[in-house]
């Protein structure tokens, strides 16, 4: 399932995938895969992404509808 919350959080910070990847010390392809829903990141990476985007885990990775 696509992670649109993460994508919009990244856009609101005006970060490219490349920039966010550098901040989280991962490849651009990993960020792309997470946003497309092709890869489930580990908790450590989730935390790194949340810190980079100034969001909480719930805001980016919790599926409210589930």
């Amino acid at each position, binding site marked *: 399932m696509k992670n649109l919350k993460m994508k919009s959080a990244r856009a609101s910070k005006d970060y490219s995938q490349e920039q966010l*990847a550098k901040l989280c*010390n991962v*490849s651009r392809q*990993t960020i*792309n895969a997470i946003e497309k829903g092709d890869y489930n*990141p*580990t908790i450590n990476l989730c935390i790194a992404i949340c810190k980079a985007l100034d969001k909480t885990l719930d805001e980016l990775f919790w599926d409210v509808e589930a």
Partner: protein
Amino acid sequence: MPEKIEMMLVAIMLLAAILTIAFISKNSKLKMQHFDEMQLLIRATAYRNAYFTVIGVLAALMVLSTFGLNNIVDTATQMCTALMAGITVFAVYCIKKDAFFGIDYDNKGYVYMIFAIGVFNLVMGIWRLIDGTIRVDGVITFTHGASNLIIGAGFFIVLVALLLKKSDDKSEVGE
């Protein structure tokens, strides 16, 4: 007998080269490649695929040897084929999934090296194939050009995969 000694010498040199590379890479202060978590998972799958490829090719060679394959291709060439098939599968899978090079790894030198090794070996192997010196007593022999052909073909396939990936990345739609 001399040929067996020659093969033993080749094997010893290869082992020495591998040990030297392993020692240098372990103690080197050069920047090692860093792979992120997704790349590590992809590489694990690639190793698995390579492993089963080697097993599959060896099994096929075993079956074919009962039909007289050893009269056409010597054992060392067969083994090299299985190994190169595994290495190629690993490399192509990683390249396709963006897990061949680490993060922020400057891969230009690596690509040139693959090009040089691939082309050199392929040219040598094809040359030996055309002039017939690849065969000894009618058998395609490892030390007479077959190794060059197999290694060249493998590296060439990896090079093509790298170039295709590079062109795909350029034409990729931006986010």
